[in-house]
């Protein structure tokens, strides 16, 4: 193991939830991430913005190794997840992930969507898993949809179920990959509301988003990426209100 025993004993606040160092990722000859240094502190809400193709989703997907980094290290709570000795499944139970396309399991009811991984990955009993699932469904305002199938729900409801599914694993942090990009405009608000609530409760969040309003209001820090590098980062009001780089200005002039 590359991380010494002292890593686990260190005070919780001292270890960043996510720490990415010199991360490069190529798909064939296409270099998507060109040496990223990035971190998310515990309890912090970091919004990653940037034009499409800037590598922001790839960065997020490297954090729970849905994408295999080409070089560089990704540490989650001090554990190097690029180390082949790391129990990746165990780390993943501590990282909730929400996808652009929801990715609910269409053959299972909403309740089963929420209990499946609790029972299979966390080895919780059925009663306990069901109780936790119902609590999280209530939290996203969909308690009455427990027995529905995903296809019977609107996009916004599906995404809230997906958030509840991730929360049911009691994760230490949540990754959001453009969670509202596939939604009809009138359904975006409900999902953002749930995310705001989570942020208020102190959840560590990394959010790849095009919702500048959300980034400004909820984000502790905004990271602007373009062409596979982090161009600029800082407080939302600084990055969004007073960008220092030309590329940031150009991007914001298009989306705001």
């Amino acid at each position, binding site marked *: 193991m590359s991380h010494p025993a002292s890593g686990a004993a260190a005070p919780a606040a001292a270890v960043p939830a996510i720490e990415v160092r010199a991360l490069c990722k190529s798909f064939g000859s296409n270099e998507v991430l060109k040496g990223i240094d990035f971190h998310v502190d515990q309890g912090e809400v970091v919004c990653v913005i940037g034009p499409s193709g800037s590598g922001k989703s790839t960065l997020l997907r490297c954090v729970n190794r849905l994408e295999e980094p080409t070089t560089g290290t990704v540490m989650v709570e001090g554990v190097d997840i690029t180390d082949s000795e790391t129990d990746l*499944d165990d780390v993943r139970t501590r*990282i909730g992930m929400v996808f652009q396309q929801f*990715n609910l399991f269409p053959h299972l009811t909403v309740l089963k969507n929420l209990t*499946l991984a609790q029972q299979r990955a966390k080895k919780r009993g059925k009663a306990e898993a069901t109780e936790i699932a119902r609590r999280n469904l209530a939290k996203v305002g969909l308690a009455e949809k427990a027995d529905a*199938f995903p296809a019977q729900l609107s996009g916004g409801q599906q995404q809230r179920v997906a958030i509840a599914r991730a929360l049911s694993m009691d994760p230490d942090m949540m990754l959001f990959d453009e969670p509202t990009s596939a939604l009809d405009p009138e359904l975006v608000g409900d999902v953002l509301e749930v995310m705001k609530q989570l942020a208020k409760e102190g959840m560590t969040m990394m959010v790849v988003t095009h919702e500048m309003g959300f980034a400004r209001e909820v984000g502790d820090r905004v990271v602007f990426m373009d062409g596979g590098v982090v161009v600029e980062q800082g407080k939302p009001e600084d990055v969004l209100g007073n960008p220092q780089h030309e590329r940031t200005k150009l991007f914001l002039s298009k989306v705001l």
Partner: protein
Amino acid sequence: MKRSTRRRLIQGVLYAVFAAIVLLIILAADWGRIQTNFFNLDVAAQTFPEIVTIAAKNTVVYTAIAFVGGMVLGLVLALMKLSPVLPYRWLATGYIELFRGLPALLVIFGFAYAVPIAFQWRPPGGNAGAGLIGLIVVSAAYIAETIRAGIEAVPKGQVEAARSLGMNPAWTMLTVVLPQAFRIITPPLTNELVILIKDTSLLFIAGMAIADRELTTFARDALTSQANSTPLVVAALMYLVITLPLTQLVAKLERHNKRGR
């Protein structure tokens, strides 16, 4: 000539040709002969009850065994073909290409006669059992390709969602991918099943004991002993009695499954 008149004329000619052909068949056929040879009620009555209690029952039992066996072996082959381990992929590909390329009749014959001699091994269930192994081996090759296609048709996001929740590859396959894959492949699997029902007729080549005969073997024996074709017609009706409700049932199942898609 007006376009509409011409269309009506062509249509009239087509109907007239059809009527002429039907008339020709009716007039030319020797109906008495056809009836005594194919629809002889006395001969038909003699096939009962054995055609149901032995032949139809065996056809159903053989189909069930071959289908379940083919599914189990086919699933293993499909997973091997998708395995990251290269030799597994080679093995599965070789198997599938080999047994899809051979006539089922030859494989059944081989398992009934060549394998027992070459390997000094008697398969369980006598000649019927040996033939059935051949049938399983062949159907597994087809079913494997169907299952593999089903697994690959499940969106990648499903696997990503399950893995991001910390589920290991085995549980992901078992609880997320396979249930969806089997829903996708219900129609082609039904096809395999119906084909298998009919392919049990190939088991005759294995040489069946009296009590082991399925529909076709039974009808063939009756045809010889009675010197009459009626048993073939009865057997044909028996096949339809088995296959038609089955395809209906699966169609119903498919509509039910749509709910969860």
